[in-house]
């Protein structure tokens, strides 16, 4: 009897925890989402400890071992060695760091900025503020993102911080748009009107009613976007924008290897596969989150 | 009289994220030539599913359907020819006219495609004439303008009239109407139901109708099925069922309707329809039933004939009472 009582009480006490448990249960039942989660966790681990994990961490620099150049994949060199005899596998693992770093910088800039402007425009719907913000977003959306990012990156210094800045410049309008659309659709819903009628301030409405809705869609979008940003950054580093040699980055490793195709295929195929796996991990995780969160909404 | 629609032992399951929903465990019903049959019950008890299965548009995933027979005009529907037969003999009116019309096509286009399937080779003028006739038959004002409109340019009532006219354009023997007035204004409800009734009687069609407007059901149907949580719990002529309901659920349902002469607020039935995942093994109504016994929770009652007429009920208490009489 006492036991039933306490579980009941626990359930009443932590409705959010219960919901989280439910979501996790649904999420974990989908093997694809779990694969995504595992890949993402692994990617984070590699990013954090690449210096320790990489068997030849010193190969990230300008070291050369000419005697070992162009060795195929083997147990010692899992993904072979490159034209300077450096271990491709180690360089790949170390190349995760700038990719993830760029994704982090882009999201750190574009999410707060985008969401803030979106909330602002949504809050002052139909006023000058709304118009100005909407026009600015349209302005930044009028050029394909990759081109905008390239221009911004090149105009200043061609390194990976400015590469990230460039992508961020092209990225934030999407968050503004999502937030704005969410705020508009939510304010049109009746319950917000009711809350408004009941005399609670608009700001409080935004924070208590909209933020939870917003957070779930922003988190999903962030997960999916991490994949796209890594893809974009690797495309940029493929043409030499972003991380500068000798620091390895996945995109530039692929492009450096192209001239040795097809004999020394591992030079470009291995890092390309790494990009595909990382992006797929984030996409699978994002899709899984979308499933769980949208079911929750129903 | 010949049976226009016969469903025997239909069971439908939905596979969803949480598990299997046993929406309909095993249901049989029939509509005979010229009969107007009502199907009543709370929202969410599987009425639409039954109707869709009858019209052969219950698409298999997500639903998993098993059935002994569904016959339309004496022909099973589980073959290509059977489906063709259904299309020839059955039309259906949907619950929500705002989703039943294609939002991207003009009314004229949608009506035209239906006409073309029935009369493949006619002149443009006679197609238009037929469409105008169909719209006039549902007393639609300004039919030319309606033909040239998209669904969003019409009001809810007008859309449902369009739907009815489209359903009646084919010369079918059975009309299936799935809550034709639920999405409409109360003021239009009566008009639409009267219109439907009038057209059905005029053209001597059979009708199976689901509606929450019990008053209307009482007025326009000959027989009525009462459904609860995927089961038929009572069947009889409309007059008998409404006058002396046998199943406690029917009792509650009728009592829940506000009466003009009654005083105070109508009684509802306490509780909710049981969840369809792992439904109770006994009577599905037992938890809400004022007359439930231990037997009701252990064993599911089956439909048994009561008295001499065509009266069926699935309730141990009612069956015992009838035996005692």
């Amino acid at each position, binding site marked *: 009897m006492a036991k039933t009582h306490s579980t009941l009480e626990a359930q009443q006490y932590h409705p959010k925890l219960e919901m989280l448990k439910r979501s996790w249960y649904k999420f974990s039942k989908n093997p694809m989402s779990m694969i995504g989660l595992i890949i993402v966790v692994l990617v984070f681990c590699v990013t954090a400890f690449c210096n320790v994990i990489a068997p030849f961490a010193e190969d990230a620099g300008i070291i050369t071992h000419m005697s070992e150049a162009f060795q195929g994949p083997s147990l010692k060199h899992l993904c072979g060695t490159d034209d300077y005899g450096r271990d491709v596998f180690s360089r790949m693992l170390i190349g995760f760091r700038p990719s993830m770093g760029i994704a982090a910088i882009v999201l750190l800039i574009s999410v707060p900025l985008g969401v803030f402007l979106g909330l602002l425009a949504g809050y002052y719907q139909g006023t000058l503020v709304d118009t100005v913000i909407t*026009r600015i977003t349209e302005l930044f959306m*009028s050029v*394909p*993102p*990759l*081109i905008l990012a*390239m*221009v911004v990156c*090149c*105009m*200043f210094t*061609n390194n990976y911080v400015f590469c990230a800045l460039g992508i961020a410049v092209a990225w934030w309008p999407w968050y503004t748009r999502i937030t704005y659309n969410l705020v508009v659709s939510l304010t049109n819903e009746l319950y917000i009107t009711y809350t408004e009628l009941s005399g609670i301030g608009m700001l409080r409405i935004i924070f208590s009613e909209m933020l939870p809705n917003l957070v779930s869609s922003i988190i999903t979008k962030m997960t999916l976007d991490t994949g796209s940003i890594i*893809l974009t950054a*690797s*495309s940029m580093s*493929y*043409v*030499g924008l972003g991380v500068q040699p000798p620091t390895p980055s996945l*995109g530039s490793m*692929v492009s450096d290897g*192209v001239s040795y*195709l*097809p004999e020394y295929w591992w030079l*470009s*195929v291995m890092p*390309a596969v790494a*990009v*595909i796996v990382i*992006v*797929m991990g984030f*996409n699978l995780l994002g899709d899984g989150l979308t499933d769980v969160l949208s079911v929750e909404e129903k | 009289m010949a049976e226009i629609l016969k469903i025997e032992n239909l069971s439908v399951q939905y596979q969803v994220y949480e598990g299997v929903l046993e929406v309909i465990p095993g249901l049989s019903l029939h509509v005979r030539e010229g009969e107007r049959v009502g199907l009543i019950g709370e929202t969410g008890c599987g009425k639409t599913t039954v109707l*869709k299965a009858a*019209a052969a*548009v219950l*698409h298999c*995933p997500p639903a998993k359907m098993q059935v002994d027979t569904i016959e339309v005009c004496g022909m099973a529907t589980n073959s290509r020819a059977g489906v063709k037969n259904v*299309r*020839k003999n*059955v*039309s*259906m009116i949907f*619950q*929500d006219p705002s*989703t039943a*019309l*294609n*939002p*991207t*096509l003009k009314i004229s*286009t*949608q009506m035209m*495609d*239906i006409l*073309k*399937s029935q009369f493949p080779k006619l002149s443009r003028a006679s197609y238009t004439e037929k469409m105008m006739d169909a719209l006039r038959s549902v007393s639609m004002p300004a039919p030319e303008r309606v033909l040239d409109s*998209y669904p*969003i*340019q019409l009001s809810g009532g007008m859309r449902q009239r369009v*739907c009815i006219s489209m359903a009646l354009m*084919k010369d079918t023997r059975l009309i299936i109407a799935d809550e034709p007035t639920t999405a409409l204004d109360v003021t239009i409800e009566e008009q639409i139901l009267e219109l439907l009734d009038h057209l059905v009687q005029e053209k001597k069609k059979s009708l199976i109708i689901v509606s929450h407007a019990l008053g209307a059901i009482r007025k326009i149907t000959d027989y009525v099925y009462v459904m609860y949580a995927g089961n038929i719990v009572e069947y009889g002529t409309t007059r008998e069922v409404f006058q002396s309901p046998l199943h406690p659920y029917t009792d509650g349902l009728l009592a829940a309707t506000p009466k003009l002469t009654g005083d105070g607020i109508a009684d509802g039935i306490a509780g909710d329809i049981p969840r369809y995942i792992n439904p109770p093994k006994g009577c599905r109504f037992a938890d809400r039933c004022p007359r439930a016994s231990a037997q009701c929770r252990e064993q599911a009652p089956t439909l048994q004939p009561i008295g001499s007429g065509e009266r069926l009920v699935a309730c141990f208490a009612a069956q015992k009472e009838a035996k005692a009489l």
Partner: protein
Amino acid sequence: MKKSGNMILKKILHMVFILLLLSLIVFSFIRLIPGDPVKSSLGPLASEDTIAQYRHQLYFDRPLLVQWFHWLTGVVTRGDFGTSLYTHRAVSLDIAQYLPKSLELCALAALLILVLGVFFGTLAALFKNTWVDNLIRFITYLGVVTPAYAFGIVFLLIFAYGKGAFPIGGFPTIPAEFVRTGAPALDCLLSGQFALFVKCMQSYFLPCISVAIGSIAYQARIHRSSMVENVNADYIAFAEVAGVSKGKLICKHLMKPSFIPTLTVYGLQVASLLGNAFIIENIFRINGFSQYALNVILNKDPYGIIAVTIIFGIIFSVVNMLVDIGVAMLDPRIRLRGGQ
């Protein structure tokens, strides 16, 4: 009719406004570039005088707005985009030389995205939950997560030494008398050289596929899900019961509403296509506009950068406008609301 004409006019004006704003922003950005692009373009040996003269000639010593206005009048009246500091000739000449080929490549790829995306999406939706659907879904998932250069490399590897029908890199030379627009395939068509046209198309094949494949995959996924969603809509069941024939049901009643989301994301796919063209032109050694744009950007050539941004902006905005008009044509809900 008049209503939709008004809508299109409004959209064009809006587009022009945004593009003007864009050029102004890029101008101010360029002024912010650390270092002097004019000075670095003339090399270390140039005298102060020459630099000052060149600066004056390029309006770099005037206020931002004056420079912008001068550039704008040049563009509008003479189609003159200024002088490139990288090629040391009129940017408009560079554009005329490089753009047509890239435009042709992108147009072909854009067509491919729409046709193949819709085709595979429809196929998957019609055979939902069969092996066809599963196969298409698996492949399209891979297509979405794979970078364009990886496809380029795969095609390079596959076709590298095969002397097959699809050459990698390079186009057949078009004799000078046939050149009219600068776009190889179009020129061949215009001058009736069909054998050469086929050769051009063969050369386009691999770069086109590599540029488009990711977007084809994305488009197919969107189209599949929108069709699957609409199959369960009441209006399809209603039309089915009412006896509309199967072919018409799929091709008309189901396809038309399903196209709305497909077309909506199409604009974005064109954006990613324009981006991918940078990489693919590089891999297949097509000396096109993306390659030129990349060089201009890397060399910080002010007028070049402005021209490149504006041209990509124009292409992208025009595509988006066409997409908007297309969606409005498909969806009376948008068209009628837009008219109000």
